[in-house]
C-alpha cells in the first residue's frame, strides 16, 4: 500500500497559530456550539440570545448566534448534553462543539485574508453567515478583535495550511 503519511503534512497541534504582517490566526480552545433548527426566535428568546447575525455580522460577546439558513443557526456559547439534545418544543438541537473548530483571525490584515479566501462581496455579505472559505463550507462573523471562522474541525489543518500558502502568515511557536 502506498503510505501517504509524508504527502500530507501532520495536522498542527491544538492551539496552533499563524502570524504575519498585521495578521494573527489562532485556533481557539473548544467553543461551545449548538446547531439549532426550527423556531429560532423562540430559541433565542428562551436562551436570552441576541438574534442571529449573517456573514460578517458583528458579535460582541462569547454568546451569539450565526444564521445559516432561514430556519437554522449556530448558537455559540451554549451547551447541551449529547444525550439530552434532540427535539425540544419545536426546535431541533444538536451539539456541535466537537464538530466545528473556531479560528480567530485578528489584525489589520484580517480582511486581506478574507478577500483571498472568499468571493463574497464584503460590502454586501448577505443574511447567512455560511460561506465558502478557501473552498470549504464555514461560517464567519466579526468580533471586536477580528473575525471568527467556524469550520469543520477535520479541515482545520487544511485551512491553516492554505492560509500559510497565501504568504500572509506563517506558523509560529
Amino acid at each position, binding site marked *: 500500500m502506498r503510505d501517504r*503519511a509524508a504527502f500530507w503534512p501532520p495536522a498542527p497541534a491544538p492551539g496552533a497559530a499563524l502570524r504575519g504582517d498585521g495578521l494573527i490566526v489562532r485556533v481557539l480552545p473548544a467553543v461551545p456550539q449548538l446547531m439549532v433548527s426550527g423556531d429560532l426566535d423562540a430559541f433565542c428568546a428562551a436562551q436570552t440570545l441576541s438574534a442571529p447575525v449573517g456573514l460578517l455580522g458583528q458579535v460582541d460577546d462569547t454568546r451569539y448566534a450565526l444564521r445559516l439558513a432561514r430556519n437554522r443557526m449556530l448558537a455559540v456559547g451554549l451547551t447541551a448534553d449529547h444525550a439530552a439534545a434532540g427535539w425540544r418544543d419545536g426546535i431541533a438541537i*444538536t451539539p456541535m462543539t466537537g464538530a466545528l473548530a473556531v479560528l480567530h483571525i485578528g489584525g489589520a490584515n484580517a480582511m486581506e485574508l478574507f478577500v483571498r479566501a472568499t468571493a463574497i462581496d464584503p460590502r454586501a455579505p448577505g443574511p447567512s453567515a455560511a460561506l465558502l472559505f478557501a473552498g470549504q463550507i464555514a461560517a464567519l462573523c466579526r468580533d471586536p478583535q477580528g473575525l471568527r471562522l467556524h469550520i469543520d474541525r477535520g479541515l482545520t489543518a487544511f485551512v491553516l495550511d492554505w492560509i500559510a*500558502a497565501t504568504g500572509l502568515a506563517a506558523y509560529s511557536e
Partner: protein
Amino acid sequence: MTARRLPEGGEVDRSRPLSFTFDGRPVQGFHGDTLASALLASGERVLGRSFKYRRPRGIWGAGTEEPNVYADATDGPRFHPNLRVTLEPARDGLDLRSANSSPSARADRLGFLDLFARFLPSAFYYKTFFWPNWHVYEPAIRRMAGLGRIKPSSAPLPDGDQRNHHCDTVVVGAGPVGIAAALGLSRSGESVVLVDDGSRIGGSLLFRSARIDGMPGANWLAAAEADLRQLGVTVLTRTTAFGIYDHGLIALNQRRDDGPDRLWRVRPRRIVLAAGAVERPLPFAANDLPGVMSAEAALGYLRRQAVLPGLRIVVATNNSSTDEVAAAMTAAGAEVTVVDARQGRRVARALGRRMVTGVVLEDGTRIPCDCVLVSGGFTATVHLHAQAKGRLRWDDARLSFVPEAPVAGLVTVGAAAGHFALAEALAALPETLGLPDVPVADSAPYDITPLWPRPGQPGRVWIDLQHDVTAKDVELAARENMVSVEHLKRYTTLGMATDQGKTSNLAGMALMGALTGRSIPEVGTTTYRPPFAPVPYTSLAGPRGGSRMNPVRRLACEARHREIGASLGDYGGWLRPAHYGSDDSAILAEAKLARAAVGLFDASPLGKIEVIGPDAAAFLDFIHYNTVSTLKPGQCRYGFILAESGVVYDDGVLVRLDDHRFVVSCSSAHVAGVHGLLEEWRQDRFPAARIAIHDATAETATLTVSGPKARATLAAAGIDADLSDTAFPHMTTRWHGSGEAALRLTRVSFTGDRSYEVSVRQDLAPPLWDRLAAAARAEGGGPIGIEALMILRAEKGFIVIGKDTDGMTRPMDLGVSGPMKAKKVDFLGRRSLFTDEAQRADRNQLVGLLPADGFGPLPVGAHGIDLSGTTPRSIGYITSSHPGAALDHPVALGLIERGAERHGQEITLHHLGQRRRATLCPPCFLDPKGERLHA
C-alpha cells in the same frame, strides 16, 4: 537588421545597466528595457524558430500579440517556460533560451525542415502518418511540436496568489481612452479598477505624439496619473484581463516583480473595454523574415527604449498610422522609404535568407534595406466583448470587426470599438459612458485602403506567423472544402497558437473569402474563448496546489496514529490509518490479532446524520428500504437506502436515540451524498417544521473495539457501564456518563465479532484512544487499520457499497427481498424494483467465491466467464478478495449472474490473460450463526 540603441532618449535608465544571456550569449541592457527591447538593441537578429518549418524569426510586436519569440528562462533555481519577451522586463542574471529551437535559435538543428516545406502542407500529418498507425509516429512528432520544455529538476515555482475584488467598474486598457474613462467614472463616484498589461499606463501616449486638452500627451498623462492616485483608482499594470465568465466575473492575471503571478477575480458592476487594437502584417512573400516587424511596435521601441530597429528602413503600409512612424525613424537617423498602398505601391516580396536585406515592389523596384516596418491596419481587440457573447459587425471603413452593440455590463470604447483616431475615440466617450466631461484631443483621421492576401499570390506569404500557416495552406483548405471558418482553423491551425491569431485571423478570413466568393463578414469569425493570453498554471491554481488541491479531513487522533507508525491513506475524503507500520504484512497480522483478541479501530468518519422531529420516523420509513418506525429508542437496525432507480445507494446502521431523534450512520465516503439526499426528499415531501436534518458526523469521534476481548478491553479502559448481553444486547445503543465527556456506546459489528462503537466529542477523543489502546494491548490486541477491517468484514460477507455493488445492484441482488414484498408504506426506489429489468432472473447477485485451483487469493476485477458459446461471455466479476484471518483459505466476494442459485458450482475466471477456477458459495464464510457476536 542592424538595430541599435540611441545614445539618448527613451525611458531606459542608462545609469543602471544589466546583463543576461540569450542562447548562451551575453546581452546588455538597461533598467527600463523589456527582454525584447534589450535583445533588439543588442543586435540579436534570429530570436526564435517557427513552429513547423523552424524558419528563423525575429521580434514582430511589442505586446501580447507577439507571435514569434518566446523564451524559456532560468532565474536562479527556478525555471519559467515560454516567457513572453515583449512583456517581461529585462532582469540581471537571467538565462534565456529560445523556446522552439535546439541548440539555439541562430543554429537550429531542425532548420533543414524548411527545405521540405512543400511536402509538409497543412494537415500533412493526417494524410501521411496513418500506416501502420499514428501512434508509431506520435512520440517523435510530439517531441518536435509544442513550445518550451518543462525542466523537472528546477525548483518548484512558488504558489500563485489569488484574490477576489468587488468594484463598480473595471476599465481594461490604460491608454488615453481607458484613462479618461477611469477618471470620469471615478469622479462620478464609482470605485474603479484600471488594468493594463504594459509596465506603465499610457498606452499609445507612451510612444505616439498627441495633444489632449491643449497640452502634449505626455503632460496630460502625468496629470492623469496624479489624478488617478488622488481619486483612489486601483491601477494594476502588467496585468492582463484574460477572460470574462458567468455573472460578469472578469479574471485578471497580474505579473509581479516581488512575487508569483496574482490572479484577480473581479466582480464589477460594469466592464469598460478599452483594450485598443492590434496591428496586422501585410501579405507579401517572405513576410516572416527577421527584420520585418510591426511599425507600431517599432515606434514603441524607438520612443520608449531608444532602440532604432534599422538604418535603412522600408515602411510598408496601407494606412495613415505609419506617417508618424516614418517621420520618427527619419528623425532618429534612419534612411526611410515609404511604400504606401494608398498610393498604389505594394511590396511583392522580401529578400534575404536569415534576415531581410531588401524588398521587391510589385512594379519590380528593388529597395535594399535592413528592416521593413509594416502596417496592414488594425484589428480591434474585441476578445472580451465576444467572450461575453457580444455580437460583432464588420466595419468597411476601418477594415475591422467591431462590437455591434454593448452587452449587459460591458461597454467597449476607443480603438477596441473601432475608433482608431484618438480624437474620435475620446469624442465618443460622453455618449458611450454618459460622462459629461471628457478630454478633447487633436489627431488626424484614420485612413486605410484594403490590402489582403490574394489567391495565387506568388511566393510563400505568411498568414499565421507562429503556426506557419501560409496563403497556400488557406488555398489548400479551400480546395479540400474546409471553407467554414471553424474548419479552416482546425485544418490549417490558423489562429490556434499561443497568440490565438491576434495578427493573423483577419487575413486568413479575407483570403478564404476571396477564394470562395464571400465577404469577410460572410466568412465570419471563430468563437472567442478565454484566455485572451496564456496564463501560468500556478496563477490559476493559487494556493490550492499539491496537498491543498483536494484536502482530506483529519482525524482527531491523527497524531496518535502517526506516533505508532501508521501508514496513512486517503479514504473517502479522510486521512486514515491503512495499517500500522510500513510493511503491508501488518494488515493480515492486525486482522488475526482482532480475531484472536481485540482490535481497536478509528471509525470516526462513519456518517452520523441526525434526523430530528415528530415526523422523523415516517420520513426515514420513506427513505429506507427497511422499516424504521418499528425501532424502539435505543435500538439499531441495518438497512439500505436506495436511489430512485432502485439501485442500492448506501447501507448502514440506523440508530433510534429517542422517539424523535435518529442517527443515520451512513458510509464514511457517502456522508455528503446521503445528507444531500435526505435534504432533497425532506424538502420535497415533508414539512420543515416537523423534521430537521443535522450532519453531526464531525461532532464525535468513534473508536471501535472489536474481538473476543472487546468487552474486557472496555472494562479495562475504565468504561464501567454494564456491558452484559442482557443489559446491553447486540444492535442497541446507550449513553454512558454525562456532560461534555459523555460516551455513546453502540453494539454493532462490521467484523462478525463482538464489537462496541465508542463515540465521544471529537476534540476529546485522543485521551480516550490512549486508554482504549493501552487496554487493548493489555488484552493481547492492539490498533488495526482499515485494510485489516476489510479482511474481517469480507470473511463475514459484509459488503462495502460501491465496491461490492455497482450501478446495477438492487437489494434483491444482495439477498434482501423482504421489504420489497412486505413493506406497507411507500419508500424511495420502490417502483423501480418491480420493473422488468429489476426482476430479471439472470441478474448479477452477491456470492462468495473460493479458489478451486489450489492457487492463492482470486484477483479483484477478474471476470467470471461463460465458455459455452463461440466466444467467452462475462457473467460478472470479483469485487473483493482477501486472505483469510480466522480462516485458513482466501475469500472473495463477487457479483455473478444467477449467483444465488449457483452455490457449489465451479466457474472459470479470466483476468489479465490468465484463467482461474473458483467455487461459488454463500457470501458469509465465517460464523454464519453469528455466535462470535456474543463471544
